[in-house]
C-alpha cells in the first residue's frame, strides 16, 4: 500500500511526465490552447495509458518473457497502443462527435504520444508488478493531465498578454513550461521508491 501511494505521489508531482521527464511534449504544446480540448485530451490519455499498460504488462509477462522475446517489446507495445487508440477513436466518434471534432488530429496522434509508449516501457523496465503498473500508469497520466490543464489555464490568459512577436506561440509556451517545471522541482526529494 505504501509503495502504491508513493508511486501515485511521485509520478504526479515529483517525476511529472511532462515537466520532468519530457514525455508527451507534442500534445502538451498542441492541445493546451483551450481548456476544453485540454480536458478532453487528458481524459483520452488517462484511459489509453491505463488500458495500454494493463494490456502490455500482461503481454510482456505472459508472452514475451516466457518465450525470451524481450527484443520484440517495442514493436508489440506500439501495436497494442495503436489498436487501442483506434478503438477509442471509434467509440468517441459514436458517443461524442463534438469532442471528436475538438480533438481533431490529436487523437490519432496519441499513438505517437511518447508518454503512452514510455509508460508501458517503464512499467516493465522498473519491474513493477501488475497492480503497481496500473497505478503507475494512472498516476503518470494524471500527472500528464495536471500539467496539460495547468498549461491550458495559463495559455488562455497568455492570449491577451502583450509580448514580442517572436515569443508568441510555442516559444512563450515552452518558457512557461520551464517556469512550471521549476515550481515542480520543489517536490523533489520528498519521496522515493
Amino acid at each position, binding site marked *: 500500500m505504501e509503495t502504491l501511494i508513493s508511486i501515485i505521489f511521485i509520478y504526479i508531482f515529483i517525476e511529472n511526465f511532462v*515537466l*520532468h*521527464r*519530457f*514525455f*508527451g*511534449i*507534442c500534445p502538451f*504544446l*498542441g492541445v493546451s490552447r483551450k481548456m476544453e480540448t485540454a480536458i478532453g485530451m487528458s481524459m483520452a490519455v488517462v484511459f489509453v495509458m491505463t488500458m495500454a499498460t494493463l494490456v502490455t504488462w500482461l503481454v510482456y509477462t505472459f508472452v514475451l518473457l516466457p518465450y525470451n522475446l524481450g*527484443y*520484440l*517489446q*517495442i*514493436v508489440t507495445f*506500439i*501495436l497494442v497502443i*495503436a489498436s487501442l487508440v483506434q478503438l477509442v477513436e471509434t467509440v468517441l466518434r459514436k458517443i461524442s462527435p463534438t469532442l471528436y471534432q475538438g480533438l481533431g488530429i490529436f487523437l*490519432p*496522434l496519441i*499513438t*505517437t*504520444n*511518447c508518454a*503512452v*509508449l*514510455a509508460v508501458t*516501457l*517503464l512499467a516493465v*523496465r522498473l519491474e513493477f508488478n501488475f497492480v503497481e503498473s496500473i497505478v503507475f500508469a494512472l498516476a503518470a497520466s494524471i500527472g500528464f493531465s495536471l500539467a496539460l490543464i495547468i498549461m491550458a489555464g495559463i495559455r488562455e490568459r497568455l492570449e491577451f498578454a502583450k509580448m*514580442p*512577436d*517572436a*515569443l*508568441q506561440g*510555442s*516559444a*512563450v*509556451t*515552452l*518558457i*512557461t*513550461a*520551464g*517556469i512550471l*517545471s*521549476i515550481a515542480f*522541482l520543489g517536490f523533489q526529494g520528498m519521496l522515493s521508491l
Partner: protein
Amino acid sequence: MEPKNIYLQDLTRGLVKENPVFVALLGMCPLLGVTGFLFYGFGMGVATTAVAFGGTLMVSLFRNLIPSQVRIPIFIVIIATLVTVVEMSLEAFQPELHEALGVFVPLIVCNCLILGRLEAFSSKKPVLRSAADGIGAGLGFTLALVILAFVREVLGHGSLLGPNPDTVIQLFGPNFEPMTIFAQPAGAFIALGLLLALFNMFTKRFNI
C-alpha cells in the same frame, strides 16, 4: 525546376525552411530529454536520422504494395523494427550512449517527425527522393539537437564533449560555477523557448 537539383532540394528543405523542430515543433520529447550533453544530442540525432532514412527507403520501395487502409500500422511496424535494430546496435557498439539515452531510444518510434515524412512524402514519391527527404529531415532534427545541447552543456556544465572524462573540454576555469538550471528539465524548456524565439526573429527579419 531542374531535375538535378530536386534531390538537393529534398535534402536541404528539412534543415531550415521546414526544420522539423523549429518550424513544425516535432520530436520535442527527445529534443528536451537528451540534450544535457552535446555528445548525447548528436548521438540521438544520428540514431533518429538512421531510422528516418531506413523508414523512408522501405516505405517508398514498397509504396505500391502497402494498402492505404492499413498504411499507418504498417509504417509504425516498420519504424518500430528499425528502432529496435538501432537500439540493439547502440547497445552493442556504443554502450555508453545507449545507457545515457535510456528510454528515449525506443521512443524514437513516437517521433512524429518520422511518421510525418513517411505519410507526407515517402508513400507518394520515388525511392531516391524519399531517401534524400528522410536524411534531410533527420539532419534538420540533428541540427536542432546539437544547437540546444551545445547551449545547455556550455551553460549547464561549462564544458563541451562531456561527460566522458577522456574527451571533455572544460571551457572555463575551476572557479566557474555552472548554471545548473540548464542541465535540469526546467532549463531545457527555457533554453528551447528562447532558441525558438530567436529562430522566429531571424526567419522574420531575413524572410527565409
